[in-house]
């Protein structure tokens, strides 16, 4: 197809569109929804009885803050990346990666400090927490992918990974509030590993961020 014909075709089929709200506003909307999902998860699984006391302890609070801030930064990064030219500097992306790395190091260090290694076979409860993180991730992740897809992400891998991290981090926070176990190995396997795996999955499924009609049209030109 000639470029002139393509222009004529696009102009002939142009329809009114409402500009999307800013990434910050959209991020707030998503955080509200993800917060509701996380709260629903805690309500269903039941919060640990001593959660308020545990929140006053430095290590527990630090892990919770890391999960929450990673989620907040990751959702803003996702929605900024989904608007062409909105990312002025890679600072937000780097900050999210650094925060995720600090979270990973914190969890790993806690396991090393116990001196027992990972309780892959000795702890029968971590698969349940793992599954809970996955379940609580599904709805916020789908919603965030749809939100990013409605815009126009150009860096699909980054966008997919951050969308997955945002959803999985808040799910991990909800599971941390519900889980009564304090073992570092359990927290690593049951609460953090699913976040890392889901992040990788976000990269793998990045192509779903491309709208089908756009992909078909591009292939047909």
């Amino acid at each position: 197809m000639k470029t002139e014909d393509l222009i004529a075709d696009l102009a002939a089929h142009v329809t009114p569109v409402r500009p999307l709200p800013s990434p910050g506003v959209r991020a707030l909307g998503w955080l509200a929804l993800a917060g509701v999902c996380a709260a629903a998860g805690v309500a269903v699984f039941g919060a640990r009885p001593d959660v308020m006391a545990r929140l006053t302890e430095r290590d527990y609070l630090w892990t919770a803050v890391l999960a929450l801030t990673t989620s907040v930064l990751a959702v803003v990064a996702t929605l900024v990346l989904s608007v062409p030219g909105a990312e002025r500097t890679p600072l937000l992306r780097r900050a999210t990666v650094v925060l995720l790395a600090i979270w990973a190091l914190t969890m790993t260090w806690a396991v090393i400090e116990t001196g027992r290694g990972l309780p892959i076979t000795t702890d029968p409860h971590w698969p349940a927490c793992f599954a809970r993180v996955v379940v609580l991730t599904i709805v916020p992740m789908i919603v965030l992918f749809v939100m990013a897809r409605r815009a126009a992400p150009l860096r699909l891998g980054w966008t997919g990974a951050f969308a997955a991290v945002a959803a999985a981090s808040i799910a991990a926070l909800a599971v941390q509030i519900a889980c009564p176990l304090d073992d570092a190995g359990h927290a690593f396997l049951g609460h953090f590993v699913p976040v890392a795996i889901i992040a990788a999955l976000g990269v793998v499924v990045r192509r779903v961020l491309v709208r089908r009609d756009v992909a078909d049209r591009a292939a047909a030109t």
Partner: protein
Amino acid sequence: MTAQQEQEATALMIRAQQGDGQAYSALLTMVSAIARQYARNRLGEVAWLDDVMQETLLTIHSARRTFDPRRPFAPWFYAILSSRMIDVLRKQKRVGLREYATDTLPEPAAQPHDASDTLDARRIHAALDALPERQREIVRALKLEDQSVKDVSERLGMSPSAVKVAAHRGYKALRRLLGERRS
């Protein structure tokens, strides 16, 4: 993009977001010229400059709701253009590595002028007949009947990408068959 062009593009984009086809056509014409110049400066006079422009125009079309009229047009536009340029560049590299260019195929003579032309046409048709049915149908439609990939994909109920892959396999097989018969 000059400041004046940017101002003009912003005004046209705002009207395009309201569904004004004329403004949209003017905008796309303007940015396609800018895109061509930009891509040519960076990539040189390559055969696939049109691909870069068309991919850019399609992305502008699908992304037009993400343009914020309170923000400058240039960063939005150049982000799309750069991204599509890189995509097309990667695609061309991949194609170069694993596929034959279609223009290396001998064109069948539609109206042969002499005996050798007739012979070439016969050879090509004989080679075509040796292809699997689906490949033969696709190559015939694209090369002999001059149909578009989109039309063929709709007619055969295949995705455009699948049609392209089948066509390239067909071209490859044709080259091999014609080479064998010539030798």
